[in-house]
């Protein structure tokens, strides 16, 4: 509408200045074609078709830029092209008009507009050439990078496969033969030899656990994952069922105050988080203390904060910063590989969550907190 108004105003100004826009001079163009209907219609049909095609091309370009918005580079060039083409179309419509009406002045002015748009587009195109080249180059480079990442992924996959299949074989040999020594040569071996063989086996089992935990750590970061509503109550129930033997043998208490909410997460990752945090909570307790872990959740501003509060031996303050690192261990008297919390950290990160640790209430035990997205993900609504 604005364009139409501007053109109308321009025309009025031109007329007022005495430059006649709509004045007719001379004879209509059909006389040039000797009023031969065949020749006239040949020109009319061709010009109309060209004009319509130009309008269609420029509307398509306009639609493309509108839809892709900022997605396509140099989108203003497309718009300039559109203007250039639509004005070319106008020129052809004028050619049709002047066949019957000698509005040669108007036809000339339209040509001026077309010329301006054409020259501007032509000039604007020059500096674009190197940019387009660099665009092509960067597209080529990102493709090469993608292929490289793909290859790295495949290599990692092969590495994991090899670790899983090959690295543990020799350990089975060491453990197996030390067991054979103990069983078949009991009488020939002095007592300390038995002790060494036992220690040897313990080392092997430890190495085996290390390898399998490392593999878990490697796979948790690469496992297919989908964020969807998951009931933490259900995850906790499964955790308690899976850890039944462990909980029973330690006479541990796993408690909640009220039902846990539903969060946006991945069931497998959440299971890993719960199992490791509950497992740690009931494992690291002072002798003679009944392990107790309480799990609660708070929803605020679209974020669910899940707390795991235990009555364990706690984590030394100076160690808190390193606690999620690989192979970090703080309680040498307790068994462990130092990978569990790294796995938890990675699982939480993959769900776009956060994890932290602090002393429990009144300085007793430890509180692990995990922040996850709530299903009613509306900040400000509690």
């Amino acid at each position: 509408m604005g364009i139409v108004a501007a053109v109308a105003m321009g025309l009025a100004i031109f007329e007022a200045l005495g430059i006649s826009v709509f004045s007719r001079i001379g004879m209509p163009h059909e006389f040039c074609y000797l009023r031969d209907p065949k020749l006239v219609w040949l020109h009319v049909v061709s010009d109309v078709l060209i004009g319509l095609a130009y309008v269609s091309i420029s509307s398509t370009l306009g639609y493309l830029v509108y839809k892709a918005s900022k997605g396509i580079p140099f989108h203003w060039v497309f718009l300039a092209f559109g203007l250039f083409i639509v004005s070319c179309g106008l020129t052809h419509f004028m050619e049709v008009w002047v066949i019957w009406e000698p509005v040669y002045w108007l036809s000339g002015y339209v040509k001026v507009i077309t010329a301006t748009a054409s020259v501007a587009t032509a000039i604007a195109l020059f500096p674009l050439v190197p940019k387009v080249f660099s665009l092509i180059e960067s597209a080529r480079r990102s493709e090469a990078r993608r292929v490289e990442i793909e290859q790295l992924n495949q290599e990692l996959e092969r590495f994991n496969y090899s670790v899983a299949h090959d690295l543990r074989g020799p350990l089975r040999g060491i453990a197996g033969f030390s067991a054979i020594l103990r069983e078949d040569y009991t009488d020939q071996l002095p007592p300390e030899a038995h002790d060494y063989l036992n220690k040897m086996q313990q080392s092997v089992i430890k190495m085996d656990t290390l390898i399998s935990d490392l593999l878990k750590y490697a796979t948790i970061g690469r496992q297919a994952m989908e964020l969807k509503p998951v009931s933490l109550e259900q995850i906790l129930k499964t955790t308690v069922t899976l850890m039944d033997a462990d909980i029973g043998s330690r006479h541990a208490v796993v408690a909640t105050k009220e039902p846990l909410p539903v969060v946006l997460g991945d069931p497998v990752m959440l299971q890993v988080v719960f199992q490791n945090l509950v497992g740690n909570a009931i494992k690291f307790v002072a002798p003679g203390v009944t392990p107790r872990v309480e799990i609660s959740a708070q929803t605020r501003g679209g974020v669910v904060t899940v707390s795991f509060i235990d009555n364990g031996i706690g984590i030394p303050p100076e160690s808190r910063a390193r606690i999620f690192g690989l192979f970090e261990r703080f309680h040498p008297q307790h068994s462990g590989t130092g990978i569990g919390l790294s796995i938890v950290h990675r699982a939480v990160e993959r769900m776009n969550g956060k994890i932290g640790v602090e002393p429990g209430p009144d300085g007793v035990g430890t509180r692990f907190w995990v922040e996850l997205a709530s299903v009613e993900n509306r900040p400000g609504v509690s």
Partner: protein
Amino acid sequence: MTSNILLVAEDDAVDALLLERALRRAGSLFRMVRVSDGEEVIDYVQGRGAFSDRASHPAPKVILLDLKMPRKDGFAVLSWRQQLPNGHLLPVVVFSSSALPQDINRAYSLGANSYVVKPAAPERLHSMVAALHEWWGGFNATTPFLPS
């Protein structure tokens, strides 16, 4: 009559030795025959090449299959069994180092009847082999597999 052959496909001599020892202790329901790769498993089951004498190499009752082996691996053997007429009558217990979920899933999707991760602790190996001996040698019912 089904045979009492437990066909063990295992390329690692140490694993095979420890397995044989554990099986001897478990009982005598099985006679263990060891081959070292997938190609040999196929030859044995089809009674070809070195295993053409069916009297001394009867069709196995159960196959204990390692996954990572030279030439044809365990997965290739499982795929071959799926195409084999009556192959489903031949129970396959996968016995692998790997606890990777993708290996376990792939083995089951190719028709494995059971999947056991090789234990590192000798006591675990003994109880696992004792259970395998009792279950697959005793309780588990099969009909004879007759290769065509």
